[in-house]
């Protein structure tokens, strides 16, 4: 395959466009058809062969423009000679600089860059190293030798040439540097994003800075997408042994009513039915934010969620998610706008009593109850009896605690008293934890 195309595809892959081998073969065939002559035509052709979603198309456009940019050495070198000086005895690079051979210089630079594997560049700190190596390969030492020789020759004309060469040298260095910088942007963008993503997935959500919120949403969306892809498929495992009589008769009409092909009954897997009860007091609120984003991402496709929030009392917020787009809904919930919830001291006593009185019938033997809170009850009555009741009614009671284990049960934490009634009790304070919990909900 064409070396340039190969490099371009590598660049795209690094920037986050998924390209399979068969797609790159398509691109190569398209390239054979259209050639490199017409830039727009080339772009259009590769565009349909390689980028397959709106997001990828955007990345593609950006990469294409940067990858196929040739505006280096576009300004002529300083004080170009009016009269032709003899370029004899000079190295290649010096001659190109003296004559202002722009295409030659660009090609020369790109070749040198390829020989030095510039596409491996990742970090800001590698910039000068690569620039130096490329310059060296382009023959910088030869150029320096030329300058030194010319100065030593002593003649006034050669001194002038030497001075001009020296200026040309800094012009060359500058262009190579900006080229390297450009390539760094091109090649390292995705790696950097990936590093940040890894970091964000494992950072404690309570320590997360506001400026990463936006990125977090992106990551959550991707996680949700993956879970959706994995689990949204209708799974109908055959339950052998139970004959589906109607289906069998219908299918065997073709065999004159002889039952050649028996059909078995199937079971459909039901959507998990989840009741989420979240503490929104300050200590847990950030986690709740991301948790709700997660759950509601899955809501329509594979999970049915009813959600409640509490602080000093309990309130249902399922409707909020139906009314508003998810981000606004989450913001509203955290601020308590239009929701009958008192944002004072956390009160598990009142909360559990509220739940028992008003919503206990939402919990059936198919329901998974998710409790999200640090169980810090401000020394109120823990109402363990009510939790026991819920636990007995539901399929599974999962408690997620954002505090690390050693803190459970210290001070006003009632965690250890609640623990016996939880089917699953987990520490949960990073995105990765969240993903694991949601995944375990989906598994049967």
């Amino acid at each position: 395959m064409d070396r340039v195309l190969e490099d371009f595809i590598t660049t795209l892959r690094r920037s986050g466009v998924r390209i399979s081998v068969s797609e790159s073969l398509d691109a190569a065939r398209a390239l054979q058809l259209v050639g490199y002559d017409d830039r727009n035509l080339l772009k259009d052709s590769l565009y349909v062969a390689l980028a397959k979603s709106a997001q990828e198309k955007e990345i593609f456009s950006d990469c294409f423009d940067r990858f196929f940019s040739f505006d280096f050495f576009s300004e002529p070198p300083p004080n170009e000679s009016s009269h032709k000086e003899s370029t004899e005895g000079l190295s290649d690079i010096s001659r190109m600089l003296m004559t202002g051979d722009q295409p030659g210089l660009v090609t020369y630079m790109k070749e040198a860059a390829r020989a030095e594997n510039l596409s491996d560049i990742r970090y800001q700190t590698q910039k000068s190293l690569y620039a130096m190596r490329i310059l060296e390969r382009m023959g910088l030492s030869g150029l320096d030798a030329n300058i030194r020789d010319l100065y030593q020759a002593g003649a006034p004309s050669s001194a002038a040439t030497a001075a001009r060469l020296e200026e040309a040298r800094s012009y060359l260095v500058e262009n190579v540097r900006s080229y390297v910088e450009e390539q760094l942007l091109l090649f390292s963008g995705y790696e950097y994003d990936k590093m940040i993503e890894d970091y964000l997935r494992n950072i404690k959500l309570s320590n997360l800075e506001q400026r990463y919120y936006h990125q977090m949403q992106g990551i959550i969306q991707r996680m949700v997408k993956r879970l959706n892809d994995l689990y949204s498929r209708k799974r109908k495992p055959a339950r052998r042994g139970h004959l589906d009589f109607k289906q069998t008769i219908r299918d065997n009409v073709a065999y004159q009513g002889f039952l050649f092909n028996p059909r078995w009954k199937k079971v459909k897997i039901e959507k998990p039915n989840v009741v989420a009860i979240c503490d929104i007091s300050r200590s847990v609120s950030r986690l709740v934010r991301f948790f709700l984003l997660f759950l509601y991402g899955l809501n329509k496709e594979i999970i049915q969620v009813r959600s409640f929030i509490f602080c000093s009392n309990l309130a249902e917020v399922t409707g909020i998610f139906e009314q508003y787009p998810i981000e606004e809904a989450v913001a509203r919930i955290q601020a308590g706008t239009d929701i009958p919830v008192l944002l004072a001291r956390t009160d598990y006593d009142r909360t559990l009593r509220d739940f028992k009185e008003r919503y206990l019938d939402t919990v059936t033997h198919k329901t998974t109850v998710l409790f999200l809170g640090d169980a810090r009850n401000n020394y109120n009555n823990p109402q363990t009896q009510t939790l026991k009741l819920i636990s007995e009614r539901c399929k599974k009671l999962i408690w997620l605690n954002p505090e690390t284990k050693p803190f459970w049960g210290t001070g006003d934490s009632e965690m250890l008293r609640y623990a016996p009634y939880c089917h699953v009790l987990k520490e949960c304070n990073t995105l990765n934890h969240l993903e694991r919990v949601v995944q375990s909900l989906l598994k049967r």
Partner: protein
Amino acid sequence: MKQKKDEKFTSIRHIQEGFKKVGYITSRQTATTVYLAHHLEKPVLVEGPAGVGKTELAKTIAAYLGLPMIRLQCYEGLDESKALYEWKYGKQLLYTQLLRDKLDSLVDREDTFAQSINKLHAYDDIFFSWHFLEPRPLLKALQQKDGTVLLIDEVDKADGEFEAFLLEVLSDFQVSIPEIGTVHAVTKPLVILTSNNTRDLSEALKRRCLHLFIPFPEPALEREIIRVRVPEIPSNLAAQLVSFIQAVRKMDIKKVPSISETIDWARVLLILHADSLSPELVRDTLHIFIKYEEDIRVVEDQLHQLTANAARAF
């Protein structure tokens, strides 16, 4: 035939002009994709908002090439027997009844069971042969001698499993029928798939297709479309109308007007003998391109502003 087809695909400009002759104005991007689709023998997956002419593209290609178009409309629950092929059960049943005597005479009463079976084996699987096969759109498209344009419309509406059936057809242009074997395409059809993006299609499907996104057209392109589809319309009215529609598309409304709706509106204005847009005229004809009560209210609020801006367009 093949040669004639190749002639129609000599260059991208050629395609653009040919499409124009059958009444379809296309961007360079779209024409390039069709060009590549023909030469690489790849299906094209077309995505884009509703009403930008995705389905129309397939019809245009068919008209341009003078080939029949076979259309498979996807919906939830679409399965193999409706898309690929089905056995004609009724016919099979009828024939077994009719041929009962024949079978009796074939199999001697004195024969043992094994002998009878052996005798029957001497004959082919008559009942599972082409005579009893009902080809559905996908199979039919493979059987066309002169080639065809196969349109798989709104593939996102079908279930995920259905995409899997499609893969074999799309990548190898063949269908496997267990009783008969693999059926290869006589002439490879040009396949167009459209999707409205109601769900993400699988990677596997995307990988096998060229991917074309048709956005709403630029003003110049849309004016051109109006000019070709409604040739009687005065050019300054067309310009005003397009600029109005383009402005409405930028507004925050539930359903933005599509190209087909722009064309409808142009036709209505033509019947009303309008020569320029006025707020009253727009108010009376608003429902032609805006289909929701709330949207109409939003647009009406800014009607004067919008018409004034549109009136400046030429």
